[in-house]
C-alpha cells in the first residue's frame, strides 16, 4: 500500500514537472522578447545574456527607450495602421461575401451544388504560393494600389475558409425556421437577413477571428506586392525588413519591442475568444 502511494506521488510530481515544462516551452520565446525589449543597446550586447534587463552592476534597470523609438519611427506606426486596415477589411469582405455563398450552399437547393462545394473545399487547400507570379501580373495589369491588392489577394485563403465554416453552420440550422418564413411570404433574401444572419453570429465571430489572424500573419504576398510600395507595408514585412533609425547593427531591441506590441493585442483576442477559436480550428479537421 505504502509503495503504491509512493508511485502515485512520483507520478504526480513527474506530471507537474511535465506541465510546467510545456508551459515554459510555449511562453519562453515571448518572455525573451519582452526581456530584450526592455534592455538598452548596451544591455543587449552584454555577454553572457541576462534573464532580466539588468545594468552592469547587476541591478534591475529596464528601459522603455525601444518602445519610444519604435513609436517615433514612422515606418512601424504606418505598418501597424496598414495591417489593421488590410486585415480588418479582408475580414469584413470575406465574411460578407462568404456568408452569402454559405447560405446558398448550406440551405438552398440548386443545380451544381456538389461541384461548388468541391470547388470551395479544394480552394481551402489551395497553395497560395502557386499563383504568386500570376497574381503579381494581374495586379500590375489592373494597376491596383498595394493595399487593395493585398485585400483582394487575401481572399484566396480567407474566402474559401469563411465560406466553408459558415456553410457547415448554416446546414445545422433547422430548416423549419426558414420554411416558416417563406410561408409568411418572406423572400429568400429577407429570410437570410432577418432570420438566419442573426442566428449565425457565433459562427461569424469564429470565422472572422481566424480570417483576421490569417491576414494579420500573411507574409509572402505582402512582401511581394509592396516591393515598390514601401508605404503600404504591413507588420510582418516591416518587422522582417526593420533596420531602425539610428543604430548600425540590426536593432534587435526595437524589433523585440515591435514584436511585443503586435503580439499582445492578438494574444488578448485569443484569450477572450479561446473556445470559439479552438472550435473553428477543429471544425474542418475533426468534424469533416
Amino acid at each position, binding site marked *: 500500500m505504502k509503495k503504491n502511494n509512493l508511485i502515485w506521488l512520483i507520478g504526480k510530481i513527474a*506530471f507537474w514537472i*511535465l*506541465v510546467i515544462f*510545456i508551459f515554459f516551452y*510555449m*511562453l519562453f*520565446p*515571448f518572455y525573451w522578447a519582452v526581456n*530584450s525589449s526592455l534592455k538598452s543597446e548596451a544591455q*543587449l*550586447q552584454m*555577454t*553572457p*545574456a541576462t534573464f532580466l534587463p539588468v545594468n552592469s552592476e547587476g541591478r534591475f534597470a529596464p528601459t522603455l527607450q525601444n518602445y519610444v523609438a519604435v513609436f517615433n519611427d514612422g515606418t512601424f506606426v504606418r505598418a501597424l495602421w496598414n495591417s489593421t486596415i488590410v486585415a480588418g477589411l479582408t475580414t469584413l469582405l470575406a465574411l460578407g461575401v*462568404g456568408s452569402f*455563398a454559405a447560405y*446558398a*450552399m448550406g440551405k*438552398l*437547393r440548386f443545380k451544381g451544388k456538389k461541384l461548388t462545394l*468541391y470547388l470551395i473545399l479544394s*480552394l481551402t487547400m489551395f*497553395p497560395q*504560393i*502557386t*499563383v504568386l*507570379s*500570376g*497574381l*503579381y*501580373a*494581374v495586379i500590375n495589369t489592373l494597376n491596383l494600389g498595394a493595399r487593395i491588392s493585398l485585400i*483582394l*489577394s487575401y*481572399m*484566396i485563403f480567407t*474566402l474559401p475558409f469563411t465560406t466553408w465554416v459558415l456553410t457547415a453552420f448554416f446546414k445545422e440550422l433547422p430548416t423549419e425556421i426558414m420554411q416558416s418564413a417563406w410561408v409568411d411570404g418572406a*423572400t*429568400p433574401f429577407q429570410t437570410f437577413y432577418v432570420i438566419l444572419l442573426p442566428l449565425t453570429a457565433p459562427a461569424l465571430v469564429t470565422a472572422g477571428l481566424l480570417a483576421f489572424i490569417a491576414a*494579420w*500573419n500573411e*507574409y*509572402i504576398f505582402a*512582401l511581394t506586392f509592396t*516591393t515598390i510600395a514601401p508605404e503600404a507595408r504591413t507588420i*510582418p514585412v516591416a*518587422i*522582417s525588413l526593420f533596420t531602425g533609425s539610428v543604430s548600425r547593427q540590426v536593432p534587435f531591441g526595437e524589433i523585440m519591442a515591435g*514584436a511585443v506590441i*503586435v*503580439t499582445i493585442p*492578438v*494574444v488578448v483576442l485569443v484569450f477572450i475568444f*479561446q473556445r470559439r*477559436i479552438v472550435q473553428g*480550428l*477543429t471544425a474542418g*479537421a*475533426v468534424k*469533416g
Partner: protein
Amino acid sequence: MARKDKLSLAQKEQRTAYKLLIPALLILALVAFYPLFQVFYTSFTDKVFASGTDEAPKLIGFENYKSLLGLTVMELPKVVDETTGEASIDEDTGKPVYERAIRVLPRSPVRYREWFQFSLFGRRYVVGARDPEFMKAIWNTLVFAVISVFLETVLGLGVALVVNSNFRGKGIMRATMLVPWAVITVVSARIWEWMLQPTRAGLFNTVLSKLGWGDGDLSFLSMPALQMPTLIAVDVWKTTPFMALLILAGLQLIPRELYEAGRVDGAGRLKQFLSITLPLLKPTLAVALIFRTLDALRVFDVFQVLMGNRMYSMASYNYYQLIGNRNMGLASAIGVIIFFLIGIFAIIYMRLMGVDKE
C-alpha cells in the same frame, strides 16, 4: 396549382442561390482561377518582368521545366597517377582520388552543375542538375516538411494527452497553447533569430556555453549542419500547439466509458492507450498530419526571414526568381511544380475526409 407554386418556389430558390454565389465566385475567379491559368500559360514562355524591351514573351515549350528539373548522372573516373600508371590514392584518407565533378559534367549545349555525389558498387557517381539550387530547395522543403510534421505530431500528441487529463490550471494551459500559434510567424522567426545570435548575447549560446557545449559562438544560421535543425526547431515551437489542439479535440470525442470498460477488464494505462486511444484517434491524426504537411510544403516565412539567400525552400526560391531575378516564366514553372506536388497530398486529404459522403 399547388404544384406550379412549388415549382416556381424551387426555381426562385435556385435563382437566389446563384445570385448569392456570384460575388464569391467572381472574386475567386479574379484572384485564384485566372492567376492560376496565367501561371500555367506563363510557365511555357520566357517572360521576364519589366524587361524594358517591347518584345512580347515567346513560347518556349517545356524549356523552363527542363532548366529547373534537368538531371544527369555521370560516373567519376579514378584519377590515374601519370608516373606509376595506377589509380592515385589520397595520402591522408587512403581512399582513391576521383576526377573533379566539374570536369566530368556536360557543359554544352546546357551546363549541369554538381548536386551531390554517391558511391555504388565501388564506383563513384555525380548527380548533376541544371539548377542545383532548385533541386536543393525541393529536397530542403521535403526534409523540412517530413521531419517537422513528424515531430509536431509526436510532441502534439504528448501535449494533448497531458492537457486532456484532469488537473487544476487546465484552462490556463489551453489558453497558453494558443500563444505560439497567435504570434505572427515572421515575428516568431525574428525572436528566434535574436535568441540564436552567434555570440553570447544570444540566449542559446549563453546557455549552451554554460553547459559546456561550444564556446558561445555557435552560428546556428550559417553552419550547414545546424541550419535545418534550427529551422525545424523554430517551426516545431510555433506549430506543435496547433497540432496539440487538433488532437485534443479528437481525444475529447472518445467516450469515457471505453476507458472505464478497459479498466474493468484489467487493462493498464499503456494497454488502454494502445488499444483505445490510438485506434480511435487515427482519423484525427491522419487529417491533422496531412493538413500540416500541406502547410509545411509551402513554407516560406521562416526560410525567408532566417535564411534569406543562404538556403531556399520551394516557395522562397519561387519568390527569389520572381522578385530577385525578375524571371516570370521560370517563377511560374516553379509555381506549377509546387501546385502538382501539393495537389497530390490534397487529393489524399480529400479522400480521408470523405467529403463526397456528405
